[in-house]
C-alpha cells in the first residue's frame, strides 16, 4: 500500500465513523456545530497520531500480556495532555466539548488503531495512519456538525444565513442520531459506487 493510500484510506474507504462505526459517542455528542466537531476531531487526531508514534516506537519492548494496559496508559497520557492544554488555552471549546475530552481515552478508534495498526507497523506508516485516520474522523465530525448546524441553526461555522432558528430538533439528541443515520447511508452508497 502506498503511503498516500495509507493516508487517505481513512477518509472514505475505511472511515472510522461511516465505515468502521467506531468512536461514535463523541461523534454524536460534540457535533452540535461544525466548529465543535472540528475541535473534537483535531483533539482526537492529536491523540491518535501521538499514541501511534509512541506505540510503534516501543512495540518491541512490550510483552504481549501487558500490551493493552501499556497502550491505555500511553493514550491516557496524551488525553490528559490535551485536556490540560485545552483548559489552559481554549477554555471555551473545552467547556463545549465537556466530558468527551477525557473520553477520548476510551474512544475505540484510538485503542483500535494502536492495537491493530501501530503495534504491527513501522514508525512512519503508523504516523501516517494515525494522522489519516484522525483526519477522516475529523472529516466525519465536521460533516455531521455542519449538517446539524445548517439544519438546526441555519448557519455554518457560526455564519448565519437564514433568519431566525432552524429546526431545533437537529441540534438536540435525536437529530444527531437521525443525521448520522442518513449520512452513513449516503457514505455507504458512495463507497459501494467507488469500489
Amino acid at each position: 500500500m502506498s503511503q498516500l493510500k495509507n493516508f487517505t484510506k481513512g477518509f472514505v474507504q475505511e472511515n472510522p465513523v461511516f465505515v468502521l462505526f467506531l468512536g461514535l459517542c463523541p461523534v454524536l455528542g460534540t457535533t452540535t456545530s461544525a466548529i465543535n466537531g472540528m475541535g473534537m476531531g483535531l483533539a482526537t487526531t492529536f491523540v491518535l497520531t501521538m499514541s501511534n508514534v509512541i506505540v510503534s516506537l516501543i512495540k518491541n519492548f512490550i510483552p504481549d500480556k501487558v500490551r493493552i494496559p501499556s497502550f491505555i496508559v500511553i493514550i491516557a497520557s496524551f488525553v490528559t495532555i490535551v485536556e490540560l492544554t485545552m483548559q489552559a488555552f481554549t477554555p471555551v471549546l473545552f467547556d463545549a466539548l465537556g466530558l468527551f475530552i477525557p473520553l477520548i481515552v476510551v474512544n475505540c478508534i484510538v485503542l483500535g488503531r494502536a492495537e491493530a495498526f501501530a503495534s504491527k507497523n513501522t514508525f512512519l506508516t503508523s504516523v501516517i495512519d494515525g494522522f489519516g485516520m484522525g483526519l477522516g474522523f475529523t472529516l466525519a465530525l465536521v460533516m455531521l456538525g455542519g449538517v446539524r448546524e445548517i439544519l438546526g441553526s441555519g448557519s455554518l461555522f457560526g455564519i448565519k444565513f437564514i433568519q431566525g432558528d432552524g429546526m431545533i430538533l437537529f441540534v438536540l439528541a435525536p437529530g444527531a442520531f437521525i443525521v448520522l443515520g442518513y449520512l452513513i447511508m449516503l457514505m455507504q452508497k458512495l463507497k459501494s459506487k467507488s469500489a
Partner: protein
Amino acid sequence: MAKKESTLINMLVALFVVTFGASTALGFIYQITKEPIAAAKLARKLDAIQNVLPEFTNNPNSETYKMPIDGDTLRFYPAKKDNELVGTAVETFTKQGFSGEIKIMVGLLPDGAIYNVAVLEHKETPGLGDKMERKKSDWITQFEGKNPKDFNISVKKDGGDIDAITASTISSRAFCEAVNRAYNAYMEGGKK
C-alpha cells in the same frame, strides 16, 4: 503478534517503565499548564464581573464573600475603584429553568439598580431558552440600568415588566427569579 514472551518480571518492568514515563511527562506538563489554567479561570470570572459592572481597579475575586440561601449559596464580588465601592457582582442561580439550573451574574450598583446581567451557565434548549445569552439575542439588554425598586422584574404574563423570550416563558421566568434572588439578598444584608 506475540513477539515477546510474557513473564512476571518483564511484565512488571515494562508496565512500570511505561507508567513511570507517562506520569513524569504528565507531571511536568501539569506544572507548565497549571499557571495558564488558573489564569484562564480567573480571567473568565473577572471577565464576567467586568461585563456586568462599571470600571473597577481592585480584584473582586479576592474579596469574595458568600451568603447561604435556598439551600445553595450566593457569591458576592465587590468591585472598587480607588477603594470606593462602585458595584457588586452577584453570582446567583435559579432551579426553575426549563431543563435545570441556570447560573447568572448580576451586577448591582450600590443603590440596588442593575448595571448589567450575564449568563454564566445554563442548559436551556438551543434556539429557545438559550436566547438569554447575549450573543444569541439582545433579550438580556432589557435588564440594563433597571432598578427593581420601580421596575417589576417578572414576565409580563405574570404582571411584570419583562418581555419573555418567545415561546420560552419558563426560561424567562426562571431568569427573573434568579435576578430577584440576587437583588433581594443584596438589599437584605448582602451589601457590604
